Structures are given as C-alpha cells and as structure tokens.
C-alpha cells in the first residue's frame, strides 16, 4: 500500500493518491484521459480473442463458416446449448474425462509441489545445516534450466520403469518447482522473525507445531502465490503429458483439444463439427481458471513480485 506524506505546501487536488502530480497546468480529467484511452485500446486487444471464443461457441457449423454478422458478432441462431450438449456427449463424454484429468493433475501436482516448496523454503530460511549454501546455489542454478529439456530423458527413464502412460508420469515430474522453493525461501527469511520461533520453542512447542502454528500463518500470501503458479503451470502443461501419454482416456484437456484439432485438420471438411467442439471445449476449459483468478486476486496480487523484491 502506498502512504502519502503530504507536505502542506505541495498538496494538489488529488492528494489522496500517492501519484498526484504537479506538472503542466492541465485539468485533472485531461491528465488521465490519454492513459485511459491507451488502456482501453489494450484491454480491447487482450479481450478480443476471448470475446471471439464466446461468440463462436454460440454458433452452429453454418454460422461458424458463414455467419450473418461476421466473426465477432452473434449469428441469428443461438446454438450454445446444443454445442454444450454435443461437447459432453461426443465420444462417450471423453471431454468431461479430460477436464477431470486436468483437475486431478493440477490439484495433486500443484498442491504437492507447493507443500514441498513451503517445507523446503522454511528449512532453507530458518535453519543452518551443513551443505546449505551449496544446496541453495544448486537450487538457484536449477531455476535457469529449461524444464522442457528434461521431458525426453524423463520419458525414457519412466518407460524403463513402465511408468509411462500412467497418471504418475504426469503428476510426479509436476512436483518439481525450484522457483517456488526460491520464492518461499526469500519470503520466509523476511516474514518469520527468529525470535518468534525461539519463543515458541522455549514454550515447549515441537518443531512441527512451531512451523504449523507460528510460521505457516505468516506465510499465507506467498503460499497462495506459489500454489497459483504451480496449479496454473500444471494445468497449462502440454509438452509433458503430450510426450508421456498415449491412452486418450488419460489426456488432460490441453492434449485432448490438440488431438481433436489434429483430427479436424486431417479430414478437411469432414471435421467441421469437430471445429465447433474444439471452440466450445476451449471456452468451457478456460472458465474454471478465470474464475479462480478473479476470486483469488487479492491473495496473489502482492505475491508475484516476491522474487524481485530482494
């Protein structure tokens, strides 16, 4: 939060905001008109694809390829209901299965990665042990390793263990989040005073109790941020499940929609109804994350700059 230190002499008409400016002698409205115009244009740019996706989901096949009112406006027929019905019944309802798989991978992988990151971050921040500095250096180095470069060797490793084409092939590698550990370590160092931990220990609380009762409540903003990053990362992951899974019943939604797109492109014309499914399916699959984002915003807004605040 910004706090102003208003000096009486320097007060402007908008002393309520820290960014009040005294420059050219222009009216306050004019001063914010240009920035607002700039923002409005960019908001349109960022929202157009989503608007198109919503509009296109309400069209039937004819409307999609030759709508009366163009691609960015609704057709005369409103087919969202029938599109949704077809989406959940097509191929024995495989779409809902994909959504379920995505949820499973994102929750188990994301929550697991967060738990590991919180524990390790706390361990690095509040304890001194042999090899700690080396481990931290290795951890920081690993943040710079592109994780997609690990997919192919991990695939060969897993296939030697007969683990490919199982849910574990997607979930286990998703538990790895070095950046999350780094964030937690940075945050814990500042947010949890040593004196508080010592006081709890003197009062006879065990280490686990001290962590859960004293440290964890102070870490909440960072935990939510790391959770968000891990869950979104797993939900959006494409390369890993694409490589690991052959059984379409195990696909997450990203790989599933890619599969449909392949089928639709392969049989030109015959795949027209599939295009509609892909569009409606994309719309339905972005809704949960968008809702999660908007409802959790007050938690993650502050946390995202953690890595850069040091």
């Amino acid at each position, binding site marked *: 939060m910004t706090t102003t230190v208003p000096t009486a002499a320097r007060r402007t008409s908008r002393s309520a905001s820290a960014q009040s400016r005294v420059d050219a002698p222009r009216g306050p409205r004019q001063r914010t008109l240009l920035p607002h115009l*700039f923002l409005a244009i960019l908001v349109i740019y960022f929202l157009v694809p989503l608007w*198109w996706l919503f509009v296109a989901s309400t069209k039937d096949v004819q409307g999609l390829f030759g709508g009366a009112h163009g691609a960015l406006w609704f057709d005369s027929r409103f087919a969202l209901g029938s599109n949704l019905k077809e989406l959940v019944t097509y191929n024995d309802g495989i779409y809902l299965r994909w959504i379920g798989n995505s949820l499973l991978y994102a929750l188990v992988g994301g929550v697991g990665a967060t738990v590991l990151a919180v524990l390790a971050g706390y*361990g690095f921040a509040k*304890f001194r042990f042999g090899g700690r500095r080396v*481990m931290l250096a290795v951890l920081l180095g690993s943040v710079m390793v592109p994780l997609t*470069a690990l997919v*192919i060797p991990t695939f060969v490793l897993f296939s030697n263990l007969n683990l490919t084409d199982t849910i574990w092939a997607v979930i286990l590698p998703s538990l790895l989040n070095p950046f999350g550990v780094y964030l937690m370590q940075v945050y814990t160092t500042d947010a949890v005073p040593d004196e508080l931990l010592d006081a709890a220990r003197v009062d006879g609380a065990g280490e686990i109790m001290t962590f859960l009762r004293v440290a964890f409540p102070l870490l909440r903003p960072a935990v939510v941020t790391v959770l968000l990053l891990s869950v979104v990362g797993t939900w959006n992951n494409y390369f890993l499940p694409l490589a690991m899974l052959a059984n379409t019943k195990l696909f997450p939604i990203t790989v599933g929609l*890619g599969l449909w797109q392949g089928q639709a492109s392969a049989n030109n014309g015959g795949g027209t109804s599939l295009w509609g499914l*892909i*569009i409606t399916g994309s719309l339905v699959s972005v809704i949960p994350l968008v809702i999660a984002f908007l409802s959790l915003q007050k938690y993650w807004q502050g946390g995202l700059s953690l890595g850069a605040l040091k």
Partner: protein
Amino acid sequence: MAHATAVDVTSPDSTTRPRAGRGRRGLNERKRSRTGLLFVLPFAVVFLAFLVAPLLYAFYLSLYSKGLATGVVFAGLKNYTTAFTDPQFLKGVWFVVRFALVLIPVQMFVSLALALVLDGLTTRFSRFARLMIFLPYAIPAVIGALMWGFLYSPTFGPMQQIADLVGAQAPFLLDPDHVFGGLMNVVTWQWAGYYMIIIFAALRGIDASVYEAARIDGASSWQIAFRVKVPMISSALLLILVFALIGTLQFFTEPQALRLVSNGTITPDFTPNIYAFSQAFAYANFNYASAISFSLGIVVFIAVYVFLFLTRKRGSIS
C-alpha cells in the same frame, strides 16, 4: 559451523552455569540442523529424481547411438557433432535466437508501459484493465494458440472479413512471410500481462516519499517514471528478462499447437524443442533427441548465467 560446542554435552560435572548452557545449546544446534535438513528432504528427493537424474540420463543417452545393424553402440560426442552441423537443428536455433532478440524487447516495452500507466491511475477502470490484461496468463498456451489460429483463419476468422470491407486480401499470419509476427503476437498476448503484474507489484513496493522528494526537486512525471521508477524496479525487470529468455529458447507449445493449421509453414524442425520432440516420437531416435535436449538445457543455462553475470545487480537473483 554449529557443531563445535557439542562436545562437552556428556560431562555431567558441569558446575558452572554458562558451560551447561552452552552444552544444551550444542545439542539443540545439532538437533536443529537435522530438523532443517528434514524440512528440505522431500523437495531434495524430487529434485534429484526429476531434475538431476533426467539431466544426467540425457547426457548418458546422448553418448550412444542406435544403428539398425549395429544395435546400441557407444558413440562418444558424435551426436553433438552431428547436431551442431545439422542444418535442421541450426535452423531452429537460429529461429529462437532471432525470436528472442525481437520478442523480448517488445514484450518488456509493452509490459513496462502498461505497468507505469496503471501505477499512475487509481480509477476503477484501471483496476479492471489490470485484471483483464493479466487474464490471458490463466489461459493454457495451447488454447491461446488455437484461438489465435482461428482468428488468423482465412475461412472463418475476422481478419479476412475486416479486409473484405475495404476489398483487400488479409495476410495469413501463419504463412512463411508472416509466421514470425504471427507467433510473436500470440506470445505477447499470453505473457505481457503476467510481466506487467510483476512490474506493477514492484512499483507498488516503492515508498511514496521517494516521489515526494523527486517532485520537490522539480522532476516532471516523465522524469519520475524513467529516472526514479524504472531504476528502482530494475531487479524486477531483470527477473522478467531472465524468465522471457528461458521461455523463448525452449519455445514449443505455441508453434506445436499451430503446426496443423499453418499449412506446412511450421515444420518438425521449427524450434530445437520441436525438433527434439519429432526426433524422439516420430523417429524413435531417443539418443539424438537426448543430445539436442541436453544441448538446449546446457546452452540456456550458460546463456542465462553469463547474462546474469554481466548484468550483476546486487540483490536480484544472486
């Protein structure tokens, strides 16, 4: 470091109080450091299993090659010499390097401009705009790419329809001449909002009295933006730059998702990662694919490391 005092714990005749205290602390220190290790252990196991092991295994695999007649034989560094003289691999490398050089400045500029504008406003609309611009980050890259693919589509995308109004022919943004810009647009749309939020949060962390001081010194709002705000958030900018660099060099998802609708523009050797993927899963050539993956991992690591070393800012990632 902490084990020095743990020696005299067992001496029961410690009559002086300080020594007893020191002894107890020694025991605690040892217990404490073991506890710390236990907190780190679960992550360490995952780290070894899914980062260190695959990296080492990639290197091991890359030293062998599989011939039809010979079976698996030790090949030394042959896969690497093949890769770095393989025009298909080098073409992909050249593409991501060019892409990074153009995309990253554009993305940084857009996200920084947005963050500075948003930081200067406190209206309801600016809060709404901040969320909407960030929203694409929540959308899977595959779906973002598919959406833009539809929007680019000459058959049912709006671009051609808009061009029809003036009787023109809209460019197909996935043909060989435009694919660079077409992909750049997809990636910028997806990530600019995320970078903007990071910069914005860093700006909010600046103490307002700094602006007050600058204003008393007679700085204009432009000067405050570029002489005060930007330098103060340089570590956030550096973090983003590193993220963008790592992300761009391993470019995979968007071009892979748009491959089928690009009418052959996006080839199986389009980026190093796509090339490794097709070598592995189209030709079952895992040894060569591992060599490419390992090269990519090492090269990106070294590039980022050198970059951080050159820009060494105290207190960012160090």
